[in-house]
């Protein structure tokens, strides 16, 4: 089942700072909802484990995350795929673009496309889309906070 999601968030930090945080595994790990581990396997790839709950389905996703189209400090593409066992699978990516705001902050625009399958898809679009939006919101709330710290 295909899903798409677009959005923008205004972050109270400079573009350089936002870019650096976007590439910091510790920050990503702290911000990704349910992320249990995020291990760097090369400069642009990670192994990740995240626990996700969608309605009645709760699953641990193991997968790979890759960064590509790196354009510091303007943006990149983050993509990945994970298997959640009985819960199914998810794969997809997001294009992330950064631009300066008038107030010295940064605008982050994201454009996500994802494929989900198995039990997750069987839950139906309405439930899954709602959860996906919620996860994205949670990520950016945490990420905005992270950009103002250290």
């Amino acid at each position, binding site marked *: 089942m295909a899903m798409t999601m677009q959005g923008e968030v205004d972050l109270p930090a400079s573009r350089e700072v936002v870019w650096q945080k976007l590439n910091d595994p510790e920050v990503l790990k702290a911000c990704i909802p349910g992320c249990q581990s995020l291990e760097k396997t090369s400069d642009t790839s990670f192994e990740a484990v995240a626990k996700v709950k969608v309605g009645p389905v709760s*699953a641990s996703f193991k997968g790979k995350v890759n960064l590509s189209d790196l354009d510091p400090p303007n943006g990149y593409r983050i993509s990945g795929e994970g298997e959640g*066992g*009985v819960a199914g699978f998810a794969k997809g990516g997001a294009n992330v673009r950064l631009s300066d705001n008038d107030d010295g902050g940064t605008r982050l625009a994201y454009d996500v496309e994802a494929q989900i399958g198995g039990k997750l*898809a*069987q839950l*139906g679009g309405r439930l899954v889309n709602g959860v996906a939006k919620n996860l994205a919101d949670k990520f950016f709330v945490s990420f905005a906070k992270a950009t103002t710290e250290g």
Partner: protein
Amino acid sequence: MSVAQIGQSVRRTEDQRFVTGKGRYVDDIGRPGQAHAFFLRSPHAHARIRRIDLHEAQHAPGVVAVLTGDDLAADKIGGLICGWMIHSKDGSPMKAGPHPALAQGKVRYVGDHVAVVIAETLAEAKDAAEKIVVDYEVLPAAVDPAKTQAKGAAQVHDEAPNNTVFNWHLGDKAATDAAFAKASHVTTIDLVNNRLVANAMEPRAAVGDYDSGTDNFTLYTTSQNPHVARLVLSAFIGIAPENKLRVIAPDVGGGFGSKIFIYAEETVCVWAAKKVGRPVKWVAERTEEFLASAHGRDHVTKAELATDAAGKILGLRVHTKANLGAYLSTFSSSVPTYLYAPLLSGQYDIPAIYAEVDGVYTNTAPVDAYRGAGRPEATFVVERLMEVTARQIGMDPAAFRQRNFVRSFPHQTPVIMCYDIGDYNASLKKALELADYKGLGRRKRESARKGLLRGLGFSAYIEACGIAPSAAVGSLGAGVGLWESAEVRVNPVGTVEILTGSHAHGQGHETTFAQLVSARLGIPMEQVSIIHGDTDKVQMGMGTYGSRSGAVGMSAIVKALDKVEAKAKKVAAYCLEASESDIEFKDGRFTVKGTDKGLSFGEVALQAYVAHKFDGQELEPGLKEGAFYDPKNFTFPSGVHIAEVEIDPETGVTRVDRWTAVDDFGVLINPLIVEGQVHGGIAQGIGQAMMEGAVYDQSGQLVTASYMDYRMPRAEDFPLYQIATTSTPCPSNPLGIKGCGEAGAIASPPALINAITDALGHEDIAMPATPQAVWKAAQKTVHKLAAE
């Protein structure tokens, strides 16, 4: 309770236990030491399995065993079978890929069975399944039946190039093409018969049990035909010889076709019971029913009807692509072929018919029989063509049908069937009256004043039931005969047990069959027990589907009752010291002609068992007879349904305002049960036409896998039906009955779509006509009306 009569609306005796929670279903069965099975299913529509790591799962708490396709292969357990051979028009046999009960090397649809975890509790089985690591190589999927044969489409099975299982045809192509060449009008329509999920109230379930002392297997399963299950599991899959395998289908909560088939889960449970040395139980979750019970319908069709200037049909031509899913289910190949094309003549005298059907593989769940099985698809084609043609040539749709009705019988169609009897115009006339067809104009104007669109649609259906003469189906490729068996056991005090090969899963056999026996033997209904669904009790039977249990199952009972009566007369003759030819049997008493000497049925039964009054060498003691009944012909129920709808073009909400059904089922045993069957059938047909639809996305994910996304009909969706019957008794069986179980589901979808398109003023809408689809279509209507 007293002696029942044929034609009496006796209330269903089994309902007392069903509605008070006392039914005994497979899930109510627990065997000592029973373990629980959970199936790990493929999340991918199409993938190669590179490796399965079971280690962690095998060592998880409570796990008894984790089994895969390799274990099945090691035990030489065969794959699931399709029991109906279809030959393509070039004469080649259908091309079927293997169908292992647990995947071997590849998964081919979302929900395909990868492994089974057997554990002490279901929760432990599920937790352990989380620990199985499957390394998939995901492959592109072929999903759309209209595109699956195209070059470059993903190949579901290597054995079936271009995903084509068969390219089959029926009828005379040259004669049909010639008919079209001389037509004054040709109607062409493109139709999709939407894919459905059966949604029986009780999900599938199985308990496999093995007795190591006797080497006997028992499978408790939700089956419509336990003997067919035993035959397939024994002779083809190789679980155990028939004498070592008992299949029990206890109370079953609805089937609608989906429980005819022999599935992976049931097979695995009975096999694993021996392998792990424990009874193994599995009960489908609702989502598993959506994913892995056979779906229904799913045809893409181009259909044409040729007429002359006087509105007489000259020919009909059809090309259908039938989606069979990723594997061939038990009877899947017969549904879009011999259960479909032979019904394309409808109620009409059509000189030439040609049908071509491509049976195709896709990466979707297997598709097989669902209430009506092929006949709803044929009726949808014929009755949409009739309505659209009438509109295009400017004839009243009722008059156009009348113009073309078959009027003399027997009538040989160009597509196999020989209709034995019917009076199609009688049903139409009665339906027109009950539906107040004359008042339609007034009702349309009234609706228009409220800003609503009203429409009326017909469906004059015919179906072939009472399947079927064994020789006929054998010649068409069936691997089995379709007779039925019955055994009548009269007990010494005159109570009676009827053992039948039919299987009730909602039809009310315990009432109808007992009613027949009561009427025939003149004994109260409560003295009659109906026993079915156990291969250790009933020797052999073919089960219940295709509206066959009345026409075939009850005919077998009649045949056995004839033998019981003949034997009882002999006993009575000895006891009454009269000649056998002077014994009469009436109202439950055996009397000597012209005298007041007589014995009740119970007294004769007792004499048969005590055997004091006759020489046991001359006449065998006891009173028990069996019969096998093989029908001479199909039966041909027919009728006319008229739907009337009112559409709100602002919202797309379609209200079914009136529904008239006039059916000819021949002789009715129990009109109350018949009416119930018609109600249920119409409900399912309205569900198909307006609500239901199983949808896979392009990647092969089932996106309608729960009642969140798959809309089932509810009581509030229906009007009060106007139901009536006409009757031309069936000449081919002793009771004159034709079968009524599927009629409603066969008749109703075209009636409804014909009504909706009448209201819309154009034909551009597909099933399911959901509010969204109707709203879109109504915008076109509104623009059209504005332009006028």
